[in-house]
């Protein structure tokens, strides 16, 4: 017995959203859905939408669904897709633009811990000028509260301990590097937003 495919009705699209994104991403509207991007994507297997599907959703103006998608955060920025795209669409820029958009709109999908990591990283730069792994991990753990789960704590402590023994991570550094100059840079950049 064959089942007829369920056809989803798409509500009126947000063309302002499509235009806003397309203005910032080279060649976005040239996509002809060849799916070369998704074929080579090393993390496509965990995404809720493949990169080519996400591009189509942006073009259809499905703003909410795009910004909630796990795809935009799971993208590892490896640039394989953009290197192979026959239409030279800057897909990694697309992901960056959508990530910033989702943060600004306050929409975070299931994997907010990835955005927490990136935010912790940038915060370390602002505070210290250079990033050391121990401080970064502490700041990240405090943001996500992941250390509150026992299994996660055990896994983290195991890896961190191994790395510590090998001298791959050191005790958190208290040293600051050109932070006065950097504070000015951050202030300027964020005044432009």
């Amino acid at each position, binding site marked *: 017995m064959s089942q007829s495919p369920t056809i989803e009705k798409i509500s009126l699209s947000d063309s302002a959203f499509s235009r806003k994104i397309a203005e910032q991403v080279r060649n976005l509207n040239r996509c002809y859905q060849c799916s070369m991007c998704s074929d080579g994507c090393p993390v496509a297997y965990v995404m809720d939408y493949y990169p080519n599907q996400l591009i189509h959703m942006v073009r259809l103006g499905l703003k909410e669904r795009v910004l909630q998608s796990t795809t935009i955060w799971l993208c590892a920025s490896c640039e394989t897709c953009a290197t192979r795209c026959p239409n030279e669409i800057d897909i990694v820029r697309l992901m960056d633009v959508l990530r910033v958009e989702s943060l600004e709109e306050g929409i975070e999908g299931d994997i907010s811990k*990835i955005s927490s990591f990136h935010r912790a990283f940038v915060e370390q*730069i602002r505070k210290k000028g250079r990033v*050391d792994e121990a401080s970064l991990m502490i700041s990240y753990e405090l943001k996500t509260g992941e250390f509150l789960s026992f299994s996660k704590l055990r896994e983290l402590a195991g890896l961190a301990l191994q790395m510590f023994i090998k001298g791959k991570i*050191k005790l958190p550094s208290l040293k600051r590097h050109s932070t006065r*100059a950097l504070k000015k840079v951050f202030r300027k*950049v964020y005044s432009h937003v």
Partner: protein
Amino acid sequence: MKFAYYPGCTAKSTSVEYEESVREISKILGIELEEIPGWTCCGASSGHVINRELALALPGRNLALAEKMSLDMVAPCPACSLRHKTAEYELKNDAALKSRIEDDIGMKLELSRKTKHILEVLYHDVGIDAIKEKVRKPLEGLKVVTYYGCYLVRPPEVTAFDDPENPTIMDEIMKSLGAEVIDWSYKVECCGGSLSIAVPEIVEKLSGRIVHEAAEAGADAIVTACGICQLNLDMRQPRNSDSSPVPVFYFSELTALAFGSSNLRKWSAKHFVDPSDLLEKLQLL
């Protein structure tokens, strides 16, 4: 030849052995590395996710500091070299953006200098013949695969490094040291680097697969040029694998070894997979 040297944050922690071996071979090859005074983090794989302007201003500031030294910049970390190359590329092509970044950093940018990865310096500026001349202990019998990862080669219009699908710069260097370089299909696959802390399950899968494929190809060891790639491949060897663990070297460690350095034992103590047995068997250690 002299360069403005950008060690990057991992040089002082995760990849001390990379930093030390790069400095050692540079000295032997007559490359002078003058550290950029007051350098700060380039934003790596997080800056551009949070704020595009910040992701250009951070490397932009380092570029301005390097320009004051009137030298080209060299970085051993592919992520660092890509961030600085990206700033050069984007700001050269957009005058308005450039003046905005100049305003952010409070310095002018000429952009007349170039950022290079240390492999590019070895291959283009030093040259294969000059490298060959320094070999004291050829790496005979050592079968390696070269692993370039993402940021050395992609995006090609920015990195201008080599063929983005099949780069050979590191292969040529390894051959000049006497190693046997095995062809394989995973040279430019991603190890999952930027997700290392937030989603280690993904990194375990991607890195484990790369290591597995290296063993399948018949390699004794993997050669890398990135602190994060080296750490991921070395630390996340495939579980439940029939094959024995595959050591993961920095190209600079093996280059130093072939040049007669005695520091390899010290460096490899920092590796998770101990390469001593392999090297002793080949009488290289």
